[in-house]
């Protein structure tokens, strides 16, 4: 049954909070939006979007594989993303796209496809429709449990605290690794550490948006914010604001609609990015 819009917006807003599943979805969405917006801001500045995408694709076989061997799928997300991050780091695949060679790109693309295929196999073997292909790939905003919300909150707080403590050294290392090294910063640790934090953020986000729609929250808000402003502090705040708007609007619309929430969240994210680009083009033309 799909709730229908009433003429009174206040009633509609109240309706959003009547069901526990909706409250859980809003809470989980809010946590993930803040986490993805902050980590995504650094990711976009570091040109590691491709690395982020790879991590998100590996979340799918991780969750499916965990379900197959009887582990919680949440654990599967974190193990698969963390493992992929460590592998990319050891193979130096995390190298930012500007210096990444053609071979690296091809290798990552091949591994991504293999990951998707393996996830599909795990699900077929499992037979049980635990989540199902669609949920793992395209998200399940509306099936989030209390336990999941709590786990997301803990992961988000740890990741955000670490980013906050390393905010400035990470920015310097992002912009100018050689200068960071000369200032005595642990460049390799920052690089590897960020990739692991990115993996955690991707694992958390893909539990809500699904492995394929992670970008709606990880890339779009951050990229839009960087179109609008070049100030680091303001950019981070804007990125969070965009991500929250995307999630809240998407969830709100989906509640009154028969179409999947992932579609709305992704479309709104795309619209926000497009608007930010347009705004910048107009500003420059003047």
């Amino acid at each position, binding site marked *: 049954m799909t709730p229908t819009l009433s003429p009174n917006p206040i009633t509609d807003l109240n309706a959003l909070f009547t069901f526990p599943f909706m409250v859980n979805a809003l809470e989980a969405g809010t946590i993930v939006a803040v986490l993805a917006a902050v980590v995504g801001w650094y990711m976009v500045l570091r040109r590691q979007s491709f690395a982020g995408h790879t991590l998100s694709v590996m979340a799918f076989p991780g969750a499916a594989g965990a379900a197959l061997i009887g582990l919680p799928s949440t654990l599967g997300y974190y193990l698969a993303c963390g493992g992929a991050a460590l592998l990319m780091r050891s193979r130096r695949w995390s190298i930012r796209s500007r210096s990444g060679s053609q071979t690296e790109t091809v290798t990552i693309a091949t591994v991504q496809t293999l990951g998707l295929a393996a996830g599909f196999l795990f699900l077929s073997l499992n037979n049980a429709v635990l989540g199902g292909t669609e949920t793992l790939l395209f998200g399940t905003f509306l099936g989030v449990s209390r336990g999941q919300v709590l786990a997301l909150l803990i992961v988000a707080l740890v990741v955000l605290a670490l980013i906050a403590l390393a905010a400035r*050294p990470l920015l310097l290392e992002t912009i100018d690794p*050689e200068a960071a090294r000369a*200032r005595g*910063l642990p460049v390799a640790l920052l690089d590897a550490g960020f990739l692991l934090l990115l993996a955690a953020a991707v694992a958390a986000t893909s539990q809500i948006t699904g492995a394929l729609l992670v970008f709606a929250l990880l890339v779009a808000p951050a990229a839009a914010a960087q179109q609008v402003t070049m100030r680091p502090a303001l950019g981070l705040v804007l990125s969070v604001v965009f991500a929250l708007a995307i999630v809240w609007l998407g969830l709100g619309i989906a509640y009154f609609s028969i179409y999947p929430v992932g579609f709305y969240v992704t479309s709104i994210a795309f619209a926000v990015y497009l608007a930010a680009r347009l705004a910048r083009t107009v500003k420059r033309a003047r």
Partner: protein
Amino acid sequence: MIELSGAAVRLGGKRVFSDVELHVGAGALVAVLGPNGAGKSTLMRVILGLVRLEAGSVTVLGRSPAQARGEIGYLPQRHGFDSSTRLRGVDLVRLGLDGARWGIPVALTKAARKRHRAEAQQVEDAITLAGAQAYAHRPIGELSGGEQQRLLIAQALVREPKLLILDEPLDSLDLPNQAAVTALLRRICTAQRVSVLLVAHDVNPLLPYLDQVIYMAGGQARTGPAAEVITSATLSELYGAPIEVLQTQDGRLVVVGQPEAPHHHGHRHELVT
């Protein structure tokens, strides 16, 4: 400011240089010259405490290089920022001040806000000193090589270092910009009593401003005023092969017969040294 004696470095089992003597005083402008692979960048990294000496000793500002690091401004060799880098010049300069500072970057207490304002002033002063006010609020990726170089110099100056080390700061700049950046460095040396050590490919734009040169070749180095070091006799001895130094009518020095060390970026290596 910098004292090296009997300095030798071995990297990956290969001797880079040995018996390097160097004395740099306060407010001096010193150029490090020589062919590719002669160890110029390695020497900079020794002074920064990033490479350990195999033999000999090095002191910077009377201390070990690692201890002096806080008072050294350093500009690594670079090939410009990517054109899509979304960061302003002022943010880049600001990172020179607080880029190595851990902790939450939000000023919560009154004292922290006061310090924040004082630092903003310091950033502005450094930008003014480098003459980069006109474009400090534009995205660094969209600036010319010369403009980026001035902002990077401001970034290195913002902590008021006693020693400034620049690795090929004139590389990839056109001639007017080479002259302007060199004049800026000379001004900083004299006005702020900062010693400047810079690696260069071509000594000619620097000649009028230099106090000293270090010429590195064949695993050795010679130090002294340019007129004494860049001579046929000294360079022949360094390279272990006959070298001739000619002077053009306008005072430029041309080195002839320089045996090339194996190098990677051949595009910038002509006869002019």
